């Protein structure tokens, strides 16, 4: 079975990796795609949803609890009926409640060939039984299947008592079930987010999102705008409006990074019909706001311009995206930029 082979040869524990990637929403990529990506780029190890699940799911969550067993004193003829009636291809052998072996259809065929159908199960069974523990993760079982190539593994608890039986099919079904559960949960989250304004009744419902922006932090510049964009997408805002908000908030954020002494804040007030974005800082302030609004007017230093900032187009971009814009500034006090974009 392909799935087990792929999963079996896997990387380090993804629980260790997942926080590095900081992905809240792991993408569904196949092993093949992930390898290809790693080969041509320096992509950080990406963990698929399936890989994550196989490390999370416990054997007891996917195993079959109702186990059909036989006794060592049963005849192989009896076993044949048990397998036929239950449509199974093997069964654990229990003696006084203790697991003593496993017997399969293969053993039955060999017995038939030898004409020994009345021999006892105890004589024909495999006694060196491989088992998995109920509290082990699915990946450990997958590895065992890949290594021993068995069709089934008896599941025991830590006291050695048989509590279930596991096939590779059980694991696949368990994974699919879990994927479906996770998918539904994501759907529900999305639904809830996009219906927040309909579900919550008040005279005026607004959602306030606040982002702190550090001065001179070029590495994280743009994150507030990205996070705001993502939030609005989840809230179900129209793509065209989201784009204008993204551009305007990015430029406002860049201004805080480039020009303020102590950084500032971006506060987005989301209403059902509009969004108000306010960018505030405590200085140094703009001496002439009218001049600052002129396209191409920039006070950026040469090295900042070399980075591609300071084109003198930021405020113009904001104005082009906004339905309303107010800029107030006082030297030595600070600047307040307010824009409104209709949703």
């Amino acid at each position: 079975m392909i799935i087990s082979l792929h999963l079996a040869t896997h990387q380090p524990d993804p629980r260790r990796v997942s926080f590095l990637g900081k992905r809240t929403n792991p993408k569904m990529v196949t092993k093949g795609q992930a390898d290809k990506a790693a080969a041509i780029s320096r992509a950080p190890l990406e963990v698929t949803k399936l890989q994550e699940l196989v490390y999370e799911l416990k054997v007891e969550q996917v195993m079959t609890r109702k186990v059909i067993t036989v006794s060592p004193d049963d005849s192989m003829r009896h076993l044949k009926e048990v397998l036929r009636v239950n449509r199974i291809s093997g069964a654990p052998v229990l003696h006084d409640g203790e697991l003593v072996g496993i017997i399969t259809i293969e053993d039955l065929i060999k017995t038939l060939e030898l004409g020994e159908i009345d021999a006892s199960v105890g004589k024909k069974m495999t006694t060196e039984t491989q088992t998995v523990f109920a509290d082990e993760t699915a990946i450990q079982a997958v590895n065992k299947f890949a290594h021993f190539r068995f069709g089934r593994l008896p599941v025991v608890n830590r006291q050695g008592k048989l509590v279930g039986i596991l096939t590779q099919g059980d694991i696949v079904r368990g994974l699919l079930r879990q994927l479906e559960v996770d998918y539904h949960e994501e759907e529900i989250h999305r639904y809830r987010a996009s219906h927040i304004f309909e579900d919550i009744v008040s005279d005026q419902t607004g959602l306030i999102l606040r982002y702190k922006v550090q001065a001179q932090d070029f590495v994280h510049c743009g994150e507030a705008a990205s996070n705001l964009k993502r939030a609005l997408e989840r809230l179900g805002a129209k793509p065209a409006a989201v784009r204008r908000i993204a551009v305007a908030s990015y430029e406002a954020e860049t201004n805080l990074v480039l020009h303020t002494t102590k950084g500032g804040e971006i506060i987005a007030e989301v209403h059902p019909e509009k969004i108000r974005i306010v960018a505030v800082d405590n200085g140094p302030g703009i001496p002439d706001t009218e001049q600052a609004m002129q396209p191409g007017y920039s006070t950026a230093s040469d090295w900042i311009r070399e980075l591609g900032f300071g084109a003198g187009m930021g405020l113009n971009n904001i104005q082009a995206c906004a339905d309303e814009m107010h800029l107030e500034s006082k030297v030595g006090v600070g600047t307040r930029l307010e824009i409104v974009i209709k949703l």
Partner: protein
Amino acid sequence: MTLGEVANRLSLSVQTAGEKLETEVTGGYASDLLSCVMAKARKGNVWVTLQCHPNIVAVAVLLELAGVIVTQGMSPDAATLQKADEEGIPLLTTAHTTFTVVGQLTQLGIQGTE
């Protein structure tokens, strides 16, 4: 034309997000001034620039660009590469100048965004 085909035809070196090369390229834009890119580039565009600091990734994410071609042998630093991988933005590098790359893109039928 997909970004992967563009990378192939122009012999670009894929530095990040190699799993995102199936994106259809909707057009192109070239500038080194980020605010100009913010104003002009459109979703699905390929952006040609010689800037290679982390903020090019932020711009590409916000505009949902197909990818960024970094020209003239500039090599994005580790922070830029890491951010691009995290955000799934393909960064492609080439030794050619911006002018040459834009010419090649035009020959492939990729139109400039006006």
